[in-house]
């Protein structure tokens, strides 16, 4: 335990919702050094608190919300971790969210919150200036995310408070439910919203004005100025500043890097209608930082004014949404996508998983495995109105929506073996949009990510597209199996570090190098770190996550990709005829990671060298 660790407030809230008790616990300095903070620290906490027998949607599960040392000390693109046992995968569940909720939690005096048990009635947690109080939320249950945030701010008489809330999807234990913070940012992945719902916790509001100590403020201010200027000189920063992630769709589509028709087609002739460039040309648009307390020169959060949707500024769908709900469902109408995106956010649904499960349903419908009588309407590719109806059915678990609310893995198992063949997921988590046939290293990253298919646990498509890491010896685009495996391992480790430090990957890869990140880390925490130390810390966290999953029952055969990418080449488009050689990639990955191919466990030697405070056994 410690009272002052640079970069942290030094305290966490420990909330037992079954007993209605709130305690304060100290931050462990040894863990903040070993596992950095954020998702690494939260995973270490979780390791001691859950087991293979813990049912994810029971009071026994624990949800940890945790900030890293960069959050609110370095106001460029902060990320806060939501970590739990995932109701989708049964393994580590993790979702990182931008915005200012984490910063406000720290200003309220706490680095994180450990949520245990489950309340008998709906509640919300108000964390204001060093005090935390569990409040009744019966009047909020059933309300959408925006209404919830608005009412809570009014009740607290504090418009500057930041709220993390679930919508009806989380309340109804929809396994693809998100937590929405700052009214617009989603901790979308792995069903963290359902875990919050299972605890009858509608929301958390945070506000405070405390400052966290940093090791060398003068140096940090200098480094911040340099970091803020970097995106304006970098092609990646300029691109994201121009259009946000939505601007990626057009070049990815021309390169074969998008899902089309549940990953069965290589060309979508309406893609021009839904690119970020088109949406921001057709509608009035603006770019803002992801949170009011965020100082970011990229401002990748884009908003649109779409008169047919609402009078307010609406979030421009991100690339992942445009791809998973647009091209993957073959919806070529921008207004439809803005409406679907808005509905998902309000109801608290992850748009990636929602797109994945609806694509599966559309294919099942096409194959006659789901009928119009089961749905009450037809479900044809490209039908935005049908998708809007289905999104509501999922969030409220109505009709077939109750099956889809289970996520694509469980939904397909309910329909039968024929339907399981085209359920696109890894370990139960629906695939993001980057294409394993196009970039084989992203296929490996999906197969071996500790949370299931995630593009943010190893953003190797960036390297295959030329955003290199010369400071780690990656000076050219990987072409062969060996270099793709090496790149994947390095990227996984770096992403694990960034999720723990609380830094947004958009503000790092292709923007600043890791020598600079190491300097910033030292200026905040006082911990002497080189780029090698950063990589090693990330590696330690990756193995910690792996060991947690093994403790929870992970089997080696689950480190894989859906057969569609391995056995079914596309018949058209930029990646016609290509499949992902996942078995060759995995064989080398296991060797380089020193994982036993029989049971997936890492070698004791590797764990000892990395200094983890848990053993392989």
């Amino acid at each position, binding site marked *: 335990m410690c009272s002052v660790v640079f970069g942290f407030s030094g305290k966490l809230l420990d909330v037992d919702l079954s007993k209605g008790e709130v305690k304060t616990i100290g931050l462990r300095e040894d863990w903040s050094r070993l596992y950095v903070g954020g998702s690494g620290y939260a995973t270490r906490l979780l390791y001691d608190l859950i087991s293979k027998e813990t049912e994810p949607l029971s009071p026994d599960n624990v949800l940890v919300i945790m900030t890293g040392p960069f959050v609110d000390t370095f106001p460029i693109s902060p990320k806060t971790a939501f970590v739990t046992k995932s109701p989708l995968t049964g393994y580590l569940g993790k979702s990182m969210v931008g915005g200012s909720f984490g910063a406000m939690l720290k200003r309220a005096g706490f680095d994180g919150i450990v949520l245990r048990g489950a309340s008998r009635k709906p509640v919300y947690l108000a964390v204001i200036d060093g005090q935390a109080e569990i409040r009744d939320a019966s009047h909020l249950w059933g309300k959408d995310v925006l209404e919830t945030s608005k009412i809570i701010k009014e009740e607290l008489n504090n418009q500057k408070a930041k709220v993390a809330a679930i919508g009806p999807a989380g309340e109804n234990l929809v396994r693809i439910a998100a937590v929405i913070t700052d009214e617009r940012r989603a901790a979308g992945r792995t069903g963290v919203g359902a875990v919050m719902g299972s605890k009858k916790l509608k929301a958390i509001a945070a506000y405070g004005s405390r400052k966290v100590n940093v090791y060398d403020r003068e140096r940090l201010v200098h480094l911040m100025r340099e970091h803020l200027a970097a995106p304006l000189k970098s*092609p990646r920063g300029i*691109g994201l500043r121009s*259009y946000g*992630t939505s601007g990626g769709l057009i070049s990815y589509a021309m390169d074969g890097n998008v899902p089309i028709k549940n990953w069965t087609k290589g060309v979508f002739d309406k893609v021009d209608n839904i690119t970020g*460039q088109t949406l921001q*040309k057709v509608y009035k648009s603006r770019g803002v930082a992801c949170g009011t307390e965020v100082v970011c020169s990229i401002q990748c959060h884009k908003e649109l004014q779409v008169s047919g949707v609402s009078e307010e500024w609406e979030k421009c769908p991100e*690339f992942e949404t445009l791809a998973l709900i647009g091209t993957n469902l073959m919806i070529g109408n921008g207004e439809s996508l803005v409406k679907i995106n808005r509905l998902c956010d309000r109801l608290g649904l992850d748009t990636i998983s929602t797109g994945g499960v609806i694509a599966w349903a559309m294919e099942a419908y096409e194959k006659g495995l789901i009928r119009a009588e089961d749905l009450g309407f037809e479900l044809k590719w490209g039908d935005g109105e049908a998708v809007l109806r289905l999104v509501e059915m999922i969030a409220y678990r109505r009709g077939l929506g109750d099956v889809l609310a289970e996520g694509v893995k469980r939904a397909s198992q309910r329909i039968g073996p024929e339907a399981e063949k085209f359920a696109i997921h890894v370990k139960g988590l629906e695939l993001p949009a980057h294409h394993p046939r196009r970039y084989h290293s992203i296929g490996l990253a999906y197969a071996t990510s500790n949370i299931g298919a995630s593009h943010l646990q190893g953003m190797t498509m960036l390297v295959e597209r030329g955003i290199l890491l010369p400071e780690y010896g990656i000076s050219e685009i990987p072409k062969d199996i060996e270099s793709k495996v090496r790149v994947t391992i390095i990227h996984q480790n770096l992403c694990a570090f960034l999720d723990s430090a609380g830094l947004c*990957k958009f503000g790092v890869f292709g923007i600043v190098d890791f020598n600079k990140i190491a300097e910033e880390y030292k200026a905040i925490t006082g911990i002497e770190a080189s780029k090698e130390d950063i990589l090693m810390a990330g590696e330690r966290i990756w193995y910690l996550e792996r060991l947690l999953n093994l403790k929870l029952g992970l089997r080696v055969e689950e480190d894989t990709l859906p057969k569609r990418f391995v056995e079914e080449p596309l018949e058209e488009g*930029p990646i016609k005829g290509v499949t992902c050689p996942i078995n060759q990639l995995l064989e080398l990955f296991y060797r380089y990671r020193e994982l036993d191919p029989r049971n997936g466990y890492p070698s004791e030697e590797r764990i000892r060298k990395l200094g983890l405070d848990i053993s392989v056994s």
Partner: protein
Amino acid sequence: MPTIKVRVYPDLENVVTVEVNTLVVKEVLEVLKDLLRLQGQYAIVKNGRILSNDEYISDDDDITLIQVVEGG
């Protein structure tokens, strides 16, 4: 000198005719970025496909410049 027709995505209606002294994609890109005062990374698309830097375009080709945005 060879002439090419260029559109800058998403303004597909506006076609600019440009004389270039090279037909190598990488060099054409540099010329066009300079001429059209474009910042960031761009790619040339022809017939629905991004051309690689070492490919060639042809005299009188109709191409589209798109800004490459590396999102998440």
